[in-house]
């Protein structure tokens, strides 16, 4: 990337991948990618090579999130360079394989864009996940998508937190884009959720096509929700959960949570209140997969990012 005035130049986004089944029981992505592997006409664009890909086939076959370890946390430098071949956990082997095909992570040979398709049991609607506030290409893409689907909404979650950030499958690419659509139970395919994800991808690929054809995108602002804190369930001395997400908070993703608002309800009916210092925007509320990761929800703070104008180099 190079800068001239306030315009950032990026090389043409020639190689694009669409990942499904990073979690084997998140069905929209599994279904879409299987569909496109059979017939990829829908995702082809001029000047773009689009590769749909099932990242965790064993987990997909068992309709489970993962077999040995969470693939979407596995792309750490240690894992990617670990020796041991077949003795390594399945997902670490997969991470190395994916890094070979679509990376290497951090190198000039890496894929330009990877879309990683996910579902959540949380009431998050359509969410785009951004890993860097300085990726103007991604910011412009997200701005384009938001405008294209309006008045329907698509929010942007920014996870740049030094401790809470994690090594995702998509992080192998120069421009990683997470797509999270909910609510949908694990192992279930809901028609409306499936179609919503399909539409977002369509607009994302349109953006890339326009960009590659030479269109210049003027500066814009993008509202994002920046990950701030992970909140666990209240637990007893043995680590067992002793309360549930409060009915007032359940399904309240992206709505303001103020100090003093109900947060959890114990199994015998008592309310536990949010004790933070200011208003936050909770999301990933009651995501099934996060019980074992000690996360009832994450708090975010609203922020407006400025994206430079971009054009192809």
């Amino acid at each position: 990337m190079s800068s001239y005035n306030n315009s950032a130049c990026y090389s043409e986004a020639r190689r694009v991948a669409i990942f499904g089944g990073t979690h084997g029981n998140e069905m929209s992505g599994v279904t879409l990618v299987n569909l496109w592997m059979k017939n990829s006409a829908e995702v082809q664009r001029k000047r773009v090579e689009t590769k749909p890909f099932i990242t965790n086939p064993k987990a997909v076959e068992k309709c489970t999130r993962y077999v040995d370890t969470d693939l979407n946390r596995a792309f750490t430098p240690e894992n990617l360079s670990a020796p041991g071949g077949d003795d390594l956990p399945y997902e670490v082997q997969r991470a190395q394989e994916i890094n070979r095909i679509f990376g290497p992570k951090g190198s000039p040979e890496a894929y330009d864009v990877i879309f990683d398709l996910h579902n959540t049991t949380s009431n998050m609607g359509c969410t785009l996940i951004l890993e860097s506030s300085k990726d103007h290409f991604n910011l412009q893409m997200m701005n384009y998508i938001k405008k294209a689907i309006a008045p329907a909404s698509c929010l942007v979650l920014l996870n740049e937190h030094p401790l809470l950030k994690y090594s995702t499958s998509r992080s192998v690419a120069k421009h990683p884009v997470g797509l999270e659509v909910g609510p949908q139970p694990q192992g279930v395919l809901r028609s409306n959720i499936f179609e919503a994800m399909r539409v977002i991808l369509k607009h994302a690929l349109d953006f890339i096509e326009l960009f590659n054809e030479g269109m210049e995108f003027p500066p814009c602002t993008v509202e994002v929700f920046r990950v701030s804190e992970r909140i666990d369930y209240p637990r007893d001395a043995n680590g067992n959960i002793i309360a549930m997400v409060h009915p007032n908070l359940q399904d309240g993703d992206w709505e303001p949570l103020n100090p003093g608002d109900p947060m959890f309800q114990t199994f015998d009916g008592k309310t536990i209140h949010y004790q933070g210092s200011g208003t936050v925007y909770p999301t990933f509320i009651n995501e099934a997969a996060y019980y074992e990761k000690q996360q009832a929800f994450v708090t975010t703070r609203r922020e407006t990012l400025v994206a430079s104008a971009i054009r192809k180099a």
Partner: protein
Amino acid sequence: MEVDEVVCLPRLSRVAVCGGTHGNELSGVYLVRELLKEEKKVKEKEDEEEPVAVLMVLSNPRAMQQCRRYVDTDLNRCFTHATLNGPMSDTVPYEMIRARELNAMLGPKGSPEAVDLVCDLHNTTANMGLCFIAYSDCDWICLHIFRHLQRQMPDIPMRYIHFDVSSKESYSLDSVGKHGFAMEIGPQPHGVVRSNIYTAMKVGVQHMLDWVRFFNSGTIFEGGFVDVFTMVKHIDYPRDSETHNITAAIHPQLQDRDFCLLHPGDALFQTFSGETVRYKGSEPLYPFFINECAYYEKGIALSLARKKHVMIPSIRVRTGQEQEANEQGFASEEEE
């Protein structure tokens, strides 16, 4: 049956409340854990004379620990007489061993030692509200409990589902007791506990146990009518003939519309290329278990039921005298 006839039934001395039969259906898991904690506290306080013995059971601890429906095989299909009593091979699925343990604890199924009532707690991803699922449409105990819950919890949509399966072929945990039903509440994703669903289950179980105590103490429960949904058939997803993968999803017009009458010609599925597949049956039926996660592998996209109005008689508990007379009657019959 006479209009004012009161049917007398034996007291319900032992009731079992079971959670975690499917390890990822979390309302029941957390509720039974909570009830076990409370029970411990009560026992520590004083020695109460409990007219009803309530057994709280976590049915499938290994599946619960892994937060999965089952480890080797579905526990809630392991309770047929054949599976419980047949020969065991060398490699026995965990759930079959567990089924035999549960049968010894709560049964044996079909014998006089079996518990009087089994209430097995379940969740579904389908938008079914609170459902009783039972093998009988003339088990007056289960039907009266259902009616009691309907009256005590008017804000919760409630239905009684009947699977017309003979006692010999009955396969689920609730068939182990002399009376039994599954309490199925949705929608809730597997692996998640939603507070509103948990609370409905907790309140439902409480009302059930209250009813049992009222019944045992001699209350007469007046008869009346209950709507019963009898399962007629299942419909599978359209599938690819080679890979067997599904090629369509439940249509948006059907999704979440459990118990809304489905007419011939109504939308059932939407293929991935956007076409609508319609219901081709000749009879309007009531759909339920629409898009239940666990049923994809069982080849069920939705189930269909016929609704009927069932007349239930007034009932009360048999007195001690009536119980003796009943037993003597049997004895003299045997002598003859």
